[in-house]
């Protein structure tokens, strides 16, 4: 029996289909693994972090006692600013729990209210001195331990000695909860405050602003420099050994571990040029060094993808090299360049290692007001919080990670949108 060509193909066909199916299932499996990993990451971060967007507040009946705030009755802002508002809170708590008489117990009782409550009351009086002498019902942040108990992170069944909250304190908290004096509210502080030793007073705003200034410096430096370098190398530079060498080195730079740029920044910007430590300016300089190769490579690829027919068309019209680049090539390459830049910026936003080297890892309470103020950045803030023992910082770590991820998703989304929106077909 002789086999015709069709028979031979037929015989092979099964094998071919099987191979195709196998190949497809490999692909599907790897995609599934990737997606599962991503899902796991999100579930774990969101699961741990979402509670940080709420904070327990405690209701206090504060009597704005004139004898404590302003005994002379002058209403002098200086005196109002220096008054001991802590006493008001202590007094309120004593009134709320008259049975607590022991000094130790009282101290623990006072600690149920966040130290930040003092500042809220001070602000209230400053804004409206008329409050003095009245009694007001106000909500102030509860201590992070109270918050953790309310959120169910403290195990009541544990032996008392292992617990952060002792039986007495839990009883007080339960009493407060029973009288509707405890309430979970949206945690505005988390989005508006700088860092703090007290979890309930700590926020990411300082780090967000620090990241913003750092990225601003990075963008302002790396985009124009990167694009100019790419345009020169791609459009004007002669092809010779020197440009080859430069090209190879740019590609090498893109692969250099980021910490090395941090070391470079430390020795050049801080030690040699004596720029301020912990400043977004220096952070931006370091991240620019790190981002530049990415921007240059992306920009060159983008320039390269502009079809030669457009260049020939322009040159054939009598446009100079410069005009050809400025009028035709650059506008067409710009979306790709921007995409590359955004992706480089997203990488810079998530970078922490090189910034540790230049001191952006300091504990900074104030929100920076400019690129020269000491500050930290989001990933470093996450790193700092992840290192703290308080349970309340665990959820804040995850919440800050969520915010960082949100920024990254938005940036990458913008890059994708740009690419889609300005995608050119020739």
């Amino acid at each position, binding site marked *: 029996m002789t086999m015709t060509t069709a028979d031979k193909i037929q015989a092979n066909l099964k094998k071919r289909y099987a191979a195709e199916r196998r190949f497809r299932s490999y692909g599907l499996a790897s995609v599934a693994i990737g997606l599962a990993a991503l899902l796991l990451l999100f579930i774990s971060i969101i699961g741990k972090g979402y509670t940080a967007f709420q904070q327990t507040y405690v209701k206090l009946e504060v009597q704005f006692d004139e004898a404590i705030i302003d005994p002379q009755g002058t209403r002098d802002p200086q005196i109002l600013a220096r008054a001991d508002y802590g006493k008001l809170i202590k007094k309120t708590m004593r009134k709320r729990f008259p049975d607590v008489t022991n000094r130790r117990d009282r101290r623990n009782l006072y600690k149920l209210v966040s130290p930040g409550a003092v500042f809220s009351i001070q602000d209230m009086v400053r804004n409206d001195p008329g409050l003095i002498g009245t009694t007001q019902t106000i909500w102030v942040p509860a201590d992070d331990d109270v918050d953790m108990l309310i959120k169910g992170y403290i195990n009541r069944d544990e032996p008392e000695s292992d617990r952060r909250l002792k039986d007495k304190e839990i009883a007080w908290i339960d009493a407060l909860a029973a009288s509707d004096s405890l309430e979970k509210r949206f945690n505005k502080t988390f989005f508006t405050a700088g860092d703090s030793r007290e979890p309930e007073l700590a926020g990411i705003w300082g780090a967000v602003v620090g990241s913003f200034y750092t990225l601003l410096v990075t963008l302002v430096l790396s985009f124009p420099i990167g694009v100019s370098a790419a345009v020169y190398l791609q459009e004007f530079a002669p092809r010779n050994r020197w440009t080859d060498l430069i090209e190879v080195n740019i590609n090498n730079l893109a692969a250099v571990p980021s910490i090395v740029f941090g070391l470079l920044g430390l020795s050049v910007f801080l030690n040699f040029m004596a720029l301020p430590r912990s400043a977004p300016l220096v952070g931006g300089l370091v991240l620019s060094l790190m981002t530049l190769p990415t921007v240059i490579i992306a920009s060159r690829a983008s320039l390269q993808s502009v079809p030669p027919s457009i260049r020939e068309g322009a040159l054939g019209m009598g446009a100079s090299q410069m005009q050809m680049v400025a009028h035709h090539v650059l506008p067409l390459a710009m979306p790709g360049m921007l995409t590359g830049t955004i992706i480089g910026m997203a990488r810079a936003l998530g970078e922490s290692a090189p910034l540790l080297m230049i001191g952006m890892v300091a504990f900074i309470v104030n929100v920076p007001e400019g690129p020269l103020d000491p500050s930290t950045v989001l990933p470093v803030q996450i790193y700092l919080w992840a290192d703290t023992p308080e349970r309340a910082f665990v959820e804040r770590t995850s919440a800050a990670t969520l915010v960082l991820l949100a920024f990254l998703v938005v940036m990458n989304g913008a890059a994708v949108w740009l690419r889609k929106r300005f995608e050119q077909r*020739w």
Partner: protein
Amino acid sequence: MLNQKPAVRLENPAKTNDVSPPSPVQNREFDSKTVGCVTVDKPIMTTRNVDVYYGGKQAIINVSIDIAYNEVLSMIGPSGCGKSTFLRCLNRMNDTIESAHVTGKIELEGHDIYDKKTDVVTLRARVGMVFQKPNPFPKSVYENVAYGPRIHGLARNHTELDEIVQTSLLRAGLWDEVKDRLSQPGTGLSGGQQQRLCIARCIAVNPDVILMDEPCSALDPIATARIEELMDELRQNYSIVIVTHSMQQAARVSQRTAYFHLGDLIEVGETSNIFTNPQDKLTEDYLTGRFG
């Protein structure tokens, strides 16, 4: 296995036009083995002993030919024989290829275009080029045509620019089709319209010579016919050098035809003569379809 195609029939050798055809002259004061009427009476461009090298490889060997006023000169030859290369010498587009090196003398109205003092920008404004694949800029139809006048500063104000755009589109036979969509992208036109847009863009700077490298190879027969018609009209004002793979097209549009073979310019003749009565064996073989 040579299939014996008959030599191209000439139904209508280069439609007669009111412009007087070039008068070929036979005198040679330069070294050239090319057969036929290489020189003309009053040339707009002359090329003498042109060699082109790509790196070490020679692509054009000692080519000398004149281009007359108001003529369409077609260049034919097998693929890879150097037609495009030679065409691109005429407006120095070869400058953009780093490995390319041109020697010999090319003059435009008596001025050496490879002279150091010659400005490429001006040269390319005077010797325009239309490419094989339509390559309108990804900008509006109007911007495409207005681009040349803009960069060369040919219009003093908007009215003048509008006028240039309109006359160029009119001359390119495209005005009626695009007058209502001047602000739409030029890349959205059909292939034939795009090619005419490229021609309009080219004539908007009012060049002396238009170089066309297989301008119709990406077009259907109807679009091709439009462009051939157009070339005949354009001949009144411009000299045209066209590279084509279609001998019928060469026969239809050109007054003179040049046959290239492996970098050599074998034969130049009046189109009507060269197709019916080629002098060189190679030309004859090519025209009868023995190779190519």
